């Protein structure tokens, strides 16, 4: 074998390994989907969605869990979306370059890397105890909102940054104020990217379990919440609870719950990807 043959051989064996490496994640995803499908699909029924948790696995359902998830997501979105977009606008359009803006930047980058469970500790001390929200939906939502804030801010900034300067100039030249320019031109032009970021952030929040356990989301809630001051459980916590039980029947429930959770995640991420692609195609400055 001469040098060139060895080169080709190496190259080809790398390609084989590379295809394996690229696909192993996908293979795992495939196995995962098949596994939960096999374990839990037969458990999916109307009764599963409308039943309260129960000590008997075959009677238990995810009613309180998905209602709780809806409450938590709604409240989290109400808090995180305006604040996140506001902060993104401030950083991109208002703050002047200087120590303050670089401080904010490093700060947000750090927050994005803080483990989610640490946010749970923050929420436990600040929202649950200091602000007397108790172990309520409100406390959980504030905690999750802070957790996803960096995602919303970063995606808002990136989309605003992509809006061409000429658009702002045109608006200013017509006598529009800064806020009019931002609100009527920049933000609508950036809307696709901002929306994508929000969906991804909320999809992240839907699956979060650890911080909500820390702020005291319950594993057994026999009623659905009536207001944001009520205690709650959410889908991933219900799943965690079932997975942690020794009896195998509860694993079936866990698998069925996982099917619902994974379906929500895939739908949300899929729509974010579609939205992003569509938006990128539509924008032609």
């Amino acid at each position: 074998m001469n040098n060139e043959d060895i080169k080709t051989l190496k190259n080809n064996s790398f390609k084989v390994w590379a295809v394996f490496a690229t696909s192993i994640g996908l293979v795992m995803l495939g196995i995962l989907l098949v596994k939960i499908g096999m374990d839990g699909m037969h458990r999916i029924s109307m009764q599963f969605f409308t039943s309260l948790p129960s000590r008997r696995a075959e009677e238990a359902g995810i009613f309180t869990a998905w209602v709780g998830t809806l409450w938590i997501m709604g409240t989290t979105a109400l808090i995180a979306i305006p604040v996140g977009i506001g902060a993104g606008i401030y950083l991109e359009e208002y703050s002047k370059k200087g120590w303050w803006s670089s401080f904010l930047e490093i700060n947000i980058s750090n927050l994005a890397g803080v483990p989610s469970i640490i946010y749970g500790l923050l929420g436990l001390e600040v929202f649950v105890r200091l602000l007397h929200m108790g172990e309520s939906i409100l406390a959980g939502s504030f905690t999750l909102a802070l957790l996803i804030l960096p995602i919303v801010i970063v995606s808002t900034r990136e989309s605003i940054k992509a809006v061409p300067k000429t658009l702002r100039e045109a608006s200013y030249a017509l006598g529009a104020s800064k806020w009019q320019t931002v609100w009527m031109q920049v933000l609508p032009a950036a809307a696709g990217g901002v929306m994508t970021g929000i969906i991804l952030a909320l999809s992240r929040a839907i699956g979060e379990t650890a911080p909500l356990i820390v702020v005291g989301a319950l594993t057994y809630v026999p009623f659905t919440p009536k207001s944001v001051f009520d205690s709650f459980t959410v889908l991933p916590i219900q799943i965690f609870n079932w997975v942690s039980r020794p009896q195998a029947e509860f694993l079936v429930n866990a698998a069925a719950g996982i099917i619902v959770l994974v379906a929500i995640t895939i739908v949300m991420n899929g729509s974010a990807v579609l939205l992003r692609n569509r938006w990128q195609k539509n924008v032609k400055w």
Partner: protein
Amino acid sequence: METIRIEKKMKTNTEKQHEIVSAEFMPDENFSTKRKVMNKIETKNVHCWYGDFHVLRDVTIAIEPNTVTALIGPSGCGKSTYLRAFNRMNDLIDGFKLEGDVLIDGKNIYDKQMHVNELRKNVGMVFQKPNPFPKSIYENVAYGLRVNGINDKKVIDETVERSLKQAALWNEVKDNLHKNALGLSGGQQQRLCIARAIAIQPSVILMDEATSALDPISTGKIEDLIAELKKDYTIMIVTHNMQQAVRVSDKTAFFFLGDMVEYNNTKEIFNNPQQEHTRNYVGGRFG
């Protein structure tokens, strides 16, 4: 050829001077009261800096109402900075500083009491690259009214039609007013930008190389438009195209490396320049 065209334009210009008075009484109930007759603009000893970089030195020019003034000069000579001093667009750039007086109708527009948004309503601008908003044609023209608090649909409808007519675009778009403006051709987009600028009835229009991104036919249409608009507005253009300066402007100012070298009747600048630098530039010896 060139000279013939100049003479033709000059003639129409003088004709139009006589029409100014009647132009002020255009049948427009909503805006006629707001319009001011005088739009004399001038700068006195204006200096500009970007950070430490001194981009304009001691520029003093007085511009008569209802004329077209061309600012010419090689790239980086400060002509765009000078143009943008009149609607304070430079303020958007970090580190920009201006000294001296920029007067519109005798008022210094850099005064503390001057609202920059009010100023920009009075001084319209058209940019190098057409930059319509990614909205409908109608909304593009209506935007200037909306940000000024005018929401009466009848007024907006009328203004949109009048502005598009003045910008010689009405016939091409009147059936598609609610289509996205980004679907128009480059020349149409630029005329839309002109319509957008005149919708709020400014007294001055600034054009920053407004035809440099356009084909010759669109350029011709916009040049005709400039001649037409002169009746109602004081116009200042920046251009790299010297033939264009000759064709459309009454006065020309030549800038070189931050200095305003020469300001005179366009005819004089091109036929009988007083300064060495001007002579070299209009003679095409550098550029």
